[in-house]
């Protein structure tokens, strides 16, 4: 426990802590047991044409149990906190142990003395907002989005959603942590039309309580994005400089971060293996993964194995600083965990970035584009899952955006791809914007200009 939780959340945390402790207490001699449990309530409202399209209210919970014995690991989970399902999960995890191969790097995290960050992730007032008020927010979001521009024909969806939850983790190695958090967001996707042409645009706003939400900004961004794409055409095939808008930069950073996970490196699946201390990127790039930064919505005092989160430098002036590790990949590499275990209750801890942030530059986005002369501002990418290979580094994604000629807008473009490799793109960065924006996923990203990218079109 770090920041004092309000009475209600504290009680839920105590209940979950008791539950995971009771599972861990059943560890047999020579056996390590870890239990993680969570519970929460959530609401989602969708508005459509001035009415509630649907309203979902739910309470859910789950438990995951990991057992390690003789270097063998087994796991089981249940989507419920019902005692018989929790007991079944422990029994199944033990049974699964019998079939896995021994690996001396297997084992639960051990307390390492790092103090957890003091983070205030829960706004108890969110739990007191009435369903009627949440409905009003969704309706207001739709109203704003459809009244800003005559070319907006309607929304595909206008959503308000929130969740308030608690979780606890315990291990037979002596880790006991619990915490609570709240998040809420609004997101709207609009349809803009002119003649036969239809375009879409989305905008959202995220926070820990309703007071954090900026409906006007979410609606305004959605409308701008849709309207500026009207009249978009397919551009000619060419090589050009691309400027990724902050949300697109965040997607790109997420892929780069995943290639720096210790497991990918150890298993020969990272294009950046054996490169620590080398210049792998433009000297303009300073990249950290820092879940202790309260500005990130992914901030969390602990990782998925119960270790205190810490700030991990990945790129400094383009030089690779190191890799991210969970307990397994750290032991296998002969180093210490960086508290980079990523998981839900339904899975064992993987390794990955948790709250990436790229240090912003000094030039605003407009000035940056003007300084480049000819470029493509990429406003949206599509197909990151199908066109990016995190092992070879091959990168090819569908995109939409606006072309600039001599610093002036030269038309919206669609039905194109941009392609290069992750390795080259990092080296080809020519400018970093000052416009850092924290994305809903918890990544802090500014605009990013990358030279000499292949644009495929007509």
């Amino acid at each position, binding site marked *: 426990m770090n920041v004092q939780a309000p009475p209600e959340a504290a009680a839920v945390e105590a209940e979950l802590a008791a539950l995971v402790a009771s599972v861990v207490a059943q560890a047999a001699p020579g056996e390590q047991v870890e239990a993680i449990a969570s519970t929460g309530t959530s609401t989602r409202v969708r508005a*459509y044409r001035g*009415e509630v*399209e*649907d*309203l*979902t*209210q*739910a309470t*859910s919970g789950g438990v995951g149990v990991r057992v390690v014995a003789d270097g063998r*690991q*087994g*796991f*089981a*989970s*249940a*989507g*419920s*906190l019902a005692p018989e*399902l929790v007991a079944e*999960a422990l029994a199944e*995890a033990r049974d*699964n142990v019998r*079939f*896995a191969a021994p690996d001396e790097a297997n084992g639960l995290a051990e307390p390492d003395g790092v103090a957890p960050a003091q983070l205030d992730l829960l706004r108890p007032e969110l739990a007191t907002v009435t*369903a009627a008020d949440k409905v009003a927010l969704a309706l207001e979001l739709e109203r704003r989005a459809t009244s800003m521009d005559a070319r907006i*024909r*309607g929304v*595909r969806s206008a959503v308000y959603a929130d969740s308030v939850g608690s979780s606890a983790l315990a291990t037979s190695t002596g880790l006991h942590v619990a915490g609570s958090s709240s998040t809420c967001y609004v997101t709207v996707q609009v*349809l803009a039309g002119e003649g036969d042409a*239809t*375009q879409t645009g989305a905008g959202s706003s995220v926070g820990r309580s309703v007071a954090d939400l900026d409906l006007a900004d979410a609606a305004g961004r959605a409308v701008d994005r849709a309207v500026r794409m009207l009249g978009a055409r*397919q551009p000619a*095939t060419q090589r050009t400089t691309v400027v990724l808008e902050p949300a697109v930069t965040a997607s790109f950073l997420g892929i780069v971060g995943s290639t720096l996970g210790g497991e990918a490196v150890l*298993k*020969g*699946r990272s*294009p950046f293996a054996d490169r620590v201390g080398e210049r792998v990127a433009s000297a303009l790039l300073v990249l950290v993964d820092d879940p202790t930064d309260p500005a990130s919505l992914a901030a969390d005092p602990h990782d998925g194995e119960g270790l205190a989160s810490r700030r991990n430098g990945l790129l400094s002036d383009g030089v690779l600083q190191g890799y991210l590790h969970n307990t397994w990949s750290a032991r296998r590499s002969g180093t210490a965990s960086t508290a980079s275990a990523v998981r839900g209750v339904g*899975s*064992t801890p993987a390794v990955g970035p948790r709250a990436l942030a790229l240090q912003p530059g000094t030039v605003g986005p407009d000035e940056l584009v003007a300084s480049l002369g000819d470029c493509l501002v990429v406003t949206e990418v*599509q*197909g990151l*899952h*199908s*066109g990016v*290979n995190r*092992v*070879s580094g091959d990168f*090819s*994604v*569908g995109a*939409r955006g606006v072309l600039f000629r001599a610093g002036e807008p030269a038309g919206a473009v*669609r*039905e194109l*791809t941009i*392609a*290069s490799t992750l390795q080259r793109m990092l080296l080809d960065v020519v400018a970093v914007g000052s416009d850092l924006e924290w994305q809903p996923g918890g990544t802090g990203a500014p605009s990013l200009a990358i030279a000499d990218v*292949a644009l*495929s*079109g*007509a």
Partner: protein
Amino acid sequence: MIDQPMIDHAVLERVLGAGLRTGADFAEVFVEDRRSSSARLDDGVVEELGSSHDRGAGIRVVSGGTTGFAHTTDLTERGLLVAAEAASTVARGAGERARAVALAPRPAGPGEVGHDREGGGKAATVALLRRADDAARSAGGQISQVSVTAGSGRRRFLVANSEGVHAEDDQVRTSFSVACVALGDTGMQTGTESVGHTVGFELFDRATPEAIATTAARRALGKLTARPAPSGTLPVVIGPGSGGVLFHEACGHGLEADLVRKAASVFAGRVGDQVASPLVTLVDDGTVDGEWGTGAVDDEGSPRRRNVLIDHGVLTDYLWDHLRAREELRDSSGNGRRQSYRHLPMVRMTNTFLLAGADDPAAIVRDTAHGVYIAKLGGGSVNTATGDFVFGMTESYLIEGGEITEPLRGGNLTGNGPAVLGAIDACGDDFAMGGPGTCGKDGQSVPVGLGQPTLRVTGMTVGGTAR
């Protein structure tokens, strides 16, 4: 077979009655029990086996155009009544009144879907992982890494609604995937292969671990000598099987009635129009024996059906769920699906495929002077409102002078649905279903099947880097 009812008949009737109490005009209870297990081999060792068990109920109440939904893990009558009350708060109808619901008798049992319940067990599964690892590594010295995943799951559900529908299904799915890395002078390349069917352990009568592993290894090795894919628009020939992704993205999503009704589809208002080349007859069929998207009933209790969507290029119908069909006074097409009891159903594809044509596949390639041949497609995505879509090519080759020549590195292709459908100028007689697909929409994932014969698109934008 379901031996015991998941929830007593009389309890279901009382919960549905409670859902209607505030004046709503439709109520539904969906109860689900899902067990799944997975086993993973990576880096030469069986790393871990995992199991999960998930059960709960989702209760939906519809009043006019508004849906209320609540879900719970508490399957007692009290727990279900609490959820029904939460779901019914959105109804602003005629106020408090008791409404009796009479359900049809409990169905005899689900159809012949995934009927072999005799799993191979954990030890047998581990043996399969090892066989696949051995086969992949012996495919070539340049194979530097292999991971193998086996998954199986059993999903039982019942759905009952205030119109008297009372249906059950019991689905068993099994899948097996191999991913290889090959290391050569020019860096690393990857190759994958997945097989999945709505069957039990008899999956391995259809495909051996060795065959799946060898295919994955061959793809990785072949790409070691691959050159960058072209950048620009040129003819594309797509081989049989996985190419079904093209239709899933280029028009399948755009034919989902929920998107059509919001005018968020380029295919809205176009039934009866020629929307594709006359070579195109597109079917969505949730009844194909053993396919990945198959079931006896959909997740609203409507029987699965075979639906012809495009007949020789003419748009004949959209895909429908219960809610959208009810508003149009027609029957559901059996396409109401949900990821789990925690999710609202919506219109989804099942197994979507293009029927075979009459062309000789070899001749299609021979008649292509310069282009790209795609042997295996990866995933894709589409913006249904604009029709712009992308999909990945995971195994592709250059076509030069009517012959398949050099392998190409991976990347995406992009196109516009209506334009690409009209630009199909050849359709082979070699229909095949592709591997198991996972379709995502509005944050929900469901299993889908895909299939197609060899076909050619006269021009598509290939997202490579080479001139």
